């Protein structure tokens, strides 16, 4: 019969129409600013810089090695390396970035900077409400906007951050042990170091 | 000058415009439009004569105009489809270039 399918379709849409007023379960829309879905842990959007301790400028893990700048596919990272060295969180003298800019209007959230960073200094953020009225400067994040504490990192990506913290602690412990060893060795034999030790550090 | 002569002059002008177009333009579609214009000029005459004629209640002028409009519509449809068919053969609507008898 001509028109049978049309009638079937019409009843279906009518059922949807009426049903959506009766049962709220039909409506799958989340009304955004008021209602929010819980974020999953793997959420990521734009990178940020992690610092240890409370002073963001002193605690930045970044040593300005510029690997992320080179690896970034859309080239949205701009780093200026410092001339001098400053002690980092562990007290070791390191270079630091005098400028660290990320243009998040260019960033494509690929996470390659995070993958390549040898110091766990750059991580992915979850904050997405970053709209700006300034068309050119508003989305260019500077060092001070990018710096976030390690506690913040622990909050947004707990599992990952714990693993990173553990790895860093282990590394530091190892480095300390080694430093102690070398000072002890230095005390024992004042002779200059031999090649096998250099190989060992590699 | 009576009102009717105004209409008749207008219709004569319309007819001449249509005739000039049909004679001078090279595009087949425009020639057809020119012929339509001449038909319209005749229609205007019929209506004017019906309006100012001695027996408007007979409706003859109106009837003639109605029939003429329908004939014009049929003519336009057939004429344009002929133009389409010719265009498919010779890839042109220019009347000067439609000079080949070969299909």
């Amino acid at each position, binding site marked *: 019969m001509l028109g049978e399918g049309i009638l079937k379709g019409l009843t279906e849409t009518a059922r949807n129409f009426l049903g959506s007023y009766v049962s709220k379960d039909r409506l799958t829309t989340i009304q955004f600013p008021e209602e929010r879905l819980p974020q999953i842990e793997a959420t990521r959007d734009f990178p940020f810089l992690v610092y240890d301790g409370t002073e963001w400028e002193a605690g930045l893990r970044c040593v300005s090695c510029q690997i992320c700048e080179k690896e970034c596919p859309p080239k949205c990272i701009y780093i200026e390396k410092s001339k001098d060295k400053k002690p980092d969180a562990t007290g070791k003298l390191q270079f630091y970035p005098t400028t660290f800019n990320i243009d998040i209007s260019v960033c494509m959230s690929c996470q390659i900077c995070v993958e390549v960073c040898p110091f766990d200094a750059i991580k992915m953020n979850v904050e997405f409400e970053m709209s700006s009225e300034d068309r050119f400067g508003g989305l260019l994040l500077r060092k001070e906007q990018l710096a976030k504490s390690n506690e913040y990192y622990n909050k947004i990506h707990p599992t990952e951050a714990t693993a990173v913290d553990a790895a860093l602690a282990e590394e530091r412990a190892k480095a300390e042990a080694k430093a102690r060893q070398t000072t002890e060795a230095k005390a024992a034999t004042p002779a200059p170091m031999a090649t096998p030790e250099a190989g060992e550090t590699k | 000058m*009576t009102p*009717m*002569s*105004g*209409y*008749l*002059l*207008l219709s*004569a*002008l*319309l*007819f*001449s*415009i249509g*005739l*000039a*177009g049909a*004679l*001078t*333009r*090279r*595009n087949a*579609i*425009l020639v*057809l*439009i020119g012929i*339509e*214009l001449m038909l*319209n000029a005749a229609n*205007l005459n019929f209506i*004017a004569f*019906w*309006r*100012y*004629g*001695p027996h*408007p*209640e007979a*409706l003859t002028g*109106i*009837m003639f*105009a*109605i*029939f003429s*409009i*329908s*004939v014009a*519509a*049929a*003519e*336009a*449809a*057939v004429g344009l*489809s*002929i*133009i*389409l068919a010719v265009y498919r053969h010779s890839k042109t*609507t*220019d009347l*000067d270039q439609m000079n080949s008898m070969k299909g």
Partner: protein
Amino acid sequence: MTITFLLLAATTITGTAAAMSLKNLVHCVLALTLGLVSLAALYLQLGAQFVGFTQILVYVGAVAILAAFAIMMTRSAEPAVLTGSSSFRVSGALIALVVFAVLGWAVWSGTGALAVLGPEPEAPVNEIGVALMHRFVLPLEIIGLLLTAALIGAGILAMDETRRTK
């Protein structure tokens, strides 16, 4: 000779003259529509309501659209290179002028005899319908036949040749 008549006559002449002289064919069709609509308005002014509306329905709704379709399908919207010799164009225009002169002279000299100016006649749709069904029933049938033949004929003419032979 009222002001409305003069205005409508002016638009009619402008529209149709533009339709016959513009280079771009689509502009020609649009100008033709203007001319035909004002012609329909002239019919309305003369009291022939039915004919006026029929004029709009047939010419604007069908003939102009058909012409536009034909222009699109024959790719002749762009102004073509003028090939005709200018003497031919001049002679064509001359013939039209002569025709106008003759017609104008006939109108000028002949309408004195026909000065019957009765009250504005009525042409109600009812009466037109009755007349079509009684006095003019034979022409009506013939027109119907003609339109059917034109419909079928135009369809067959415009049909693809490959499909026609199948």
